[in-house]
């Protein structure tokens, strides 16, 4: 029998930890924006992102994508640790006993609340060992140089590390569509390096996301 009293741990009913109006706070007198735990947040203007892209391009040329990707990985490592810590604190239980639905929904809400756009998982190709991620309204590719190549290298880095840590496997991430080259959103595919190898050439060829996925599925 379901006992309603047992569903309430200490009378608490943990829910949407990252709800925007709860999560973003601040000690405005000191000039600080903070999250609900008191960790510092900051607002990055579009112009600064643009400046970073153009500065990198000027100083490092082709290497700028690699630099951004590595920054993304660094960011991802820290983000994963902090994200897990915050959730474990809030739910007052080890993360391993949190359900996957709550974990992933928290990730989506967290992404939104920070203003990084909407993140969605696409599990269509799960049986073939691939995980798809869509990011809509990304501020990072909106300010990136527009061109023929995907420019979501920061996001590629953060996703790669985040899901590697989550699954405990060394995953790679490839970007198959990008708003910087006129697509509707940023799409990424995560999988083991060996299986993901053909993607880079397909992307360089200008293939669309659907076509790339089809090719990946056919490789068996």
């Amino acid at each position, binding site marked *: 029998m*379901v*006992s309603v*009293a047992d569903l309430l741990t200490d009378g608490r009913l943990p*829910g*949407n930890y990252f709800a925007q109006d709860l999560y973003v706070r601040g000690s405005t007198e000191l000039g600080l924006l903070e999250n609900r735990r008191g960790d510092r947040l900051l607002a990055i203007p579009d112009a600064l992102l643009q400046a970073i892209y153009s500065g990198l391009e000027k100083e490092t040329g082709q290497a700028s994508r690699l630099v951004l990707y590595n920054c993304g990985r660094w960011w991802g490592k820290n983000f994963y640790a902090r994200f897990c810590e915050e959730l474990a604190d809030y739910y007052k239980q080890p993360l391993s006993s949190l359900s996957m*639905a709550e974990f992933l*929904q928290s990730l989506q809400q967290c992404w939104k609340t920070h203003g990084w756009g909407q993140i*969605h998982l696409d*599990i269509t190709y*799960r049986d073939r060992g691939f995980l798809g991620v869509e990011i809509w309204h990304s501020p990072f590719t909106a300010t990136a140089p527009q061109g023929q190549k995907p420019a979501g290298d920061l996001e590629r880095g953060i996703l790669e590390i985040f899901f590697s840590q989550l699954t405990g496997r060394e995953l790679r991430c490839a970007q198959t569509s990008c708003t910087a080259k006129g697509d509707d959103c940023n799409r990424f595919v995560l999988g083991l390096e060996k299986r993901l190898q053909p993607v880079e050439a397909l992307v360089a060829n200008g293939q669309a996301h659907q076509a790339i996925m089809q090719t990946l599925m056919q490789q068996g």
Partner: protein
Amino acid sequence: MTFKLDTLFDSPDKQYLNANDLSVLSQYVSSIPERMAVYRTLRDQEIAIMQPIADALQQQAGHPEPLVERSVRSGLMVLRYAAMAMLLDDDGFVEERLQGWLPEMVKAYETQAVDQQLFQLLMQQLAKVFSPAQLNLLKPSLEKAKSLMLNTRETVTLAGLL
């Protein structure tokens, strides 16, 4: 915090509140005792209201225990947020806090069918506890929560990952 009267309190740099604004404020203030009474009842009878619903969902409707547990948990959450929204006279509160959360949980655990019945039972149960006037205070936010939970339109689902 989202608060319907925020717009009133936001405007000292514009002008003094006019007679209309003040009457909105005084209507709200005079409704507070009733709102607090409803709130107290919900707080103190949370379990008493919800336990018969849980029993009915499991015994009469025959839904499996994990689904009932999930649905009742959502129901408790809805009731708590609706209670707060009623206290603040702000049904936008429910939407803002639950939007990115509850609909996704409903989809992930596939509880729509149970939730539908839960809402019916909840309204019946609340009608036993509150007068029609009191119930009217709660209704807007409950309706909002219900439509949030039962119209889950987004296409991406997490269910397959579980």
